[in-house]
């Protein structure tokens, strides 16, 4: 036994002494036997708190500082721990779990390398406002600052990429701290919250009662939910007189579970709806008013509609640079109404004329009410010209592509996946051309169906995210659409899939290249291909088999759909389908650098 452990014991013994004094001698027996009032160790308090919060799964990887929690996990059945193969994957799994459900994904990792391995996943969740709680082990309190074995300042490392973080300073406060972490993670603008747990606060005697606050109050935190009446009125007035309105729906609509309200508003205004990459699924992809994704690889009609709008109603979107193109050329004619629960998102990149701070699910009904009060009604004739114009842009068929060659086109694969899954599957993706093809060619039917790393653009996200989705949605088909580059960034998780029997489908759009990088090099670097060719790709089929799954390879267009049917027929097996796709395909449409939102190429060398 090291000095460390001894000191911890002494510390706990002293604590139990003082507790004894407080409680009086008649309760002293329960200190040994955990009978009358249940008493717990610090580690047990962590699990009790999670149980009380309804947690069913945690994603993690053990190590010295959290072994007490792992030990406590053995004695219970309420929480299933999913043992990953790399902590980064644990964060993406928790992330996929959150994105596809109303739960908060939970991660448990050890101090030092376990914690730092989470950084990419935390940043990914942070950029897309995904609720997550990360329980990271820490060296014992008295060692903090000594460069102890496996010590890192996790609060410092994660500070710029979390909504908030806590360190547990006393054992009794563990339940309250965890409850606060969950509250912060999922309320307001959601985000990841780190809870640092020093070993000595976990490895204690069983002397602590469990008491969880009924209601969480944080005096310095109260997100604005309801839109300000005056702002709502102004917004409604602007919408009522709009001739060419556009609704720009972002990920905030999905996070606020406000899709049905969005549809109501869309129909009330008879306005076209465009989505950011994160907003896809907030309105059905087949909805007649949906004109597509916006931005860098957005549809011609979506970018055109924005550029020509007289009123833009942005809902839970943050005018990211991949949407706006040059901000100084952004939609000069439009009055911009910007609704967001986070005031910092408003007028950060694009100045809003009518800012409304509030939760989308509350603000839309407020807007509808205000419109009703002003006896607003859309005459179909009012919108005729606008829809006529949009139709002319749609007629350009910006997503048309040549599909009769010898090679499989990526676009075709996405369309086939849609057909084979009846468009119902949850789709995760990695980052690259395959991601953009998926966003453009899969008309998502419902919110939370499309799961991708939009803000950070994290390669390696897709596979673990799909696993998290499968655990949250075991009844549904879950497909990870990946690239030959991205899949290798967390491929070790195929092993986790075997252990927990996660029958997801992995489709690799294998173009033997870091395709998206190559595309940029083709366009902006005169085709100088620096480090994009994957010279020594593994045999993905054998790799799948080595991990105990089914691997398939498809190389010819005629066999594609049949192969996918076959793969999806394996309900209880993970199938990895390596699809050899056209190597030199580019993603189009594409905005021109430094241009306006609608300055774009529709195909190689084809200007709008």
């Amino acid at each position, binding site marked *: 036994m090291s000095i460390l452990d001894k000191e911890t014991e002494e510390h706990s013994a002293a604590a139990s002494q003082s507790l004894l004094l407080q409680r009086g001698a008649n309760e002293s027996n329960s200190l040994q036997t955990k009978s009358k009032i249940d008493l717990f160790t610090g580690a047990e308090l962590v699990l009790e708190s999670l149980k009380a919060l309804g947690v069913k799964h945690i994603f993690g990887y053990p190590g010295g500082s959290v072994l007490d929690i792992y030990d406590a996990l053995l004695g219970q059945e309420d929480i299933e721990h999913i043992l990953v193969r790399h902590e980064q994957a644990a964060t993406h799994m928790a992330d996929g779990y959150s994105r596809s459900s109303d739960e908060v994904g939970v991660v448990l990792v050890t101090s030092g390398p376990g914690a730092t391995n989470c950084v990419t996943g935390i940043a990914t969740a942070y950029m897309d406002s995904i609720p997550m709680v990360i329980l990271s082990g820490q060296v014992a309190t008295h060692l903090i600052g000594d460069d102890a074995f496996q010590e890192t300042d996790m609060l410092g490392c994660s*500070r*710029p990429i979390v909504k908030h973080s806590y360190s547990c300073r006393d054992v009794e406060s563990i339940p309250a701290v965890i409850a606060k972490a969950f509250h*912060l993670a999922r309320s307001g603008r959601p985000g990841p919250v780190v809870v640092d747990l020093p070993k000595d606060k976990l490895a204690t005697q069983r002397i602590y009662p469990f008491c969880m606050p009924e209601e969480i109050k944080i005096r*310095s*935190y109260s997100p604005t939910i309801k839109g300000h009446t005056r702002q709502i009125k102004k917004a409604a007035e602007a919408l009522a007189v709009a001739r060419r309105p556009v609704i720009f729906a972002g990920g905030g609509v999905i996070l606020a579970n406000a899709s049905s309200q969005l549809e109501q508003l869309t129909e009330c205004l008879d306005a076209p709806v465009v989505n950011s990459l994160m907003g896809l699924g907030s309105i059905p992809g087949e909805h007649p008013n949906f004109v597509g994704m916006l931005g860098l690889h957005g549809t011609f009609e979506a970018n055109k509609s924005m550029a020509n709008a007289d009123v833009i109603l942005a809902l839970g979107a943050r005018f990211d640079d991949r949407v706006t193109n040059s901000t100084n050329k952004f939609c000069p004619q439009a009055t911009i109404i910007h609704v967001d629960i986070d005031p*910092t998102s408003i*007028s*950060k990149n694009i100045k809003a004329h009518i800012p409304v701070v509030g939760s989308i699910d509350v603000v839309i009904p407020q807007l509808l009410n205000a419109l009703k009060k002003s006896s607003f009604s859309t005459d179909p004739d009012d919108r005729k010209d606008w829809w006529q114009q949009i139709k002319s842009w749609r007629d350009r068929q910006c997503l048309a592509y040549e599909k009769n060659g010898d090679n499989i086109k990526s676009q075709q694969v996405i369309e086939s996946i849609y057909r084979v899954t009846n468009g119902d599957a949850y789709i995760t993706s990695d980052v690259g051309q395959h991601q953009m093809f998926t966003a453009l060619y899969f008309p998502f039917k419902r919110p939370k169906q499309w799961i991708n790393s939009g803000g950070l653009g994290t390669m390696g996200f897709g596979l673990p995210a799909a696993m998290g989705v499968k655990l949250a949605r075991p009844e549904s088909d879950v497909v990870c659409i990946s690239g030959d580059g991205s899949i290798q960034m967390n491929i070790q998780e195929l092993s986790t899939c075997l252990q927990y029997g996660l029958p997801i489908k992995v489709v690799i759009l294998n173009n033997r290249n870091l395709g998206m990088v190559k595309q940029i090099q083709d366009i902006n670097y005169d085709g100088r291909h620096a480090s994009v060719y994957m010279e020594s790709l593994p045999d993905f089929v054998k790799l799948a088999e080595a991990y105990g799954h089914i691997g398939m390879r498809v190389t010819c267009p005629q066999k594609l759909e049949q192969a996918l049917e076959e793969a999806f027929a394996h309900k209880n097996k993970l199938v990895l389908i390596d699809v050899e796709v056209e190597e030199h395909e580019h993603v189009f449409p594409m905005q021109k650098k430094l241009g306006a939102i609608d300055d774009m190429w529709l195909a190689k060398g084809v200007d709008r």
Partner: protein
Amino acid sequence: MNEQTILSILLENEPGALSRIVGLFSQRAFNIESLTVAPTDDKSLSRITIVTSGDHQIIEQITKQVNKLVDVLKVSELNNMAHIERELMFVKVNAKTPEARDEIKRTADIFRGQIVDSTNQLYTVQLSGKKDKLNAFIRSIRRQSDIIEIVRSGCVAIARGAQSLSV
């Protein structure tokens, strides 16, 4: 227009709270001209005064971002209201000859400064006031003697009248 702005921030007196503020400024490339922090009469709260600069849009973003930090209770932009601001400074100067000593003493008097430490080689002058006054004093004294060391507290400020920053 890059204007100087004084922000008063009331936040939880928690470990890590200050690092979140400072981190936010560096992370988002906001400017910090000066920063002071100390607990308030309520021990659970700290008060920070930050002098920053930027155009209107940047200042708006800074205030919103600071406000968004979970530890922060209140932010106020003191430039928007009548306020009092002060900074404290110590200046250590060479004062070896009787003439130099007289001259420094006279200048300090003019600026309502005090000599708070003295050896036969040097004086330490204490001065408080707005930044401009402190700068003017430094310019004057530099003409008369060698400055050995300067330390400034950074600005603290408070609104005039009934306005107050409290929970």
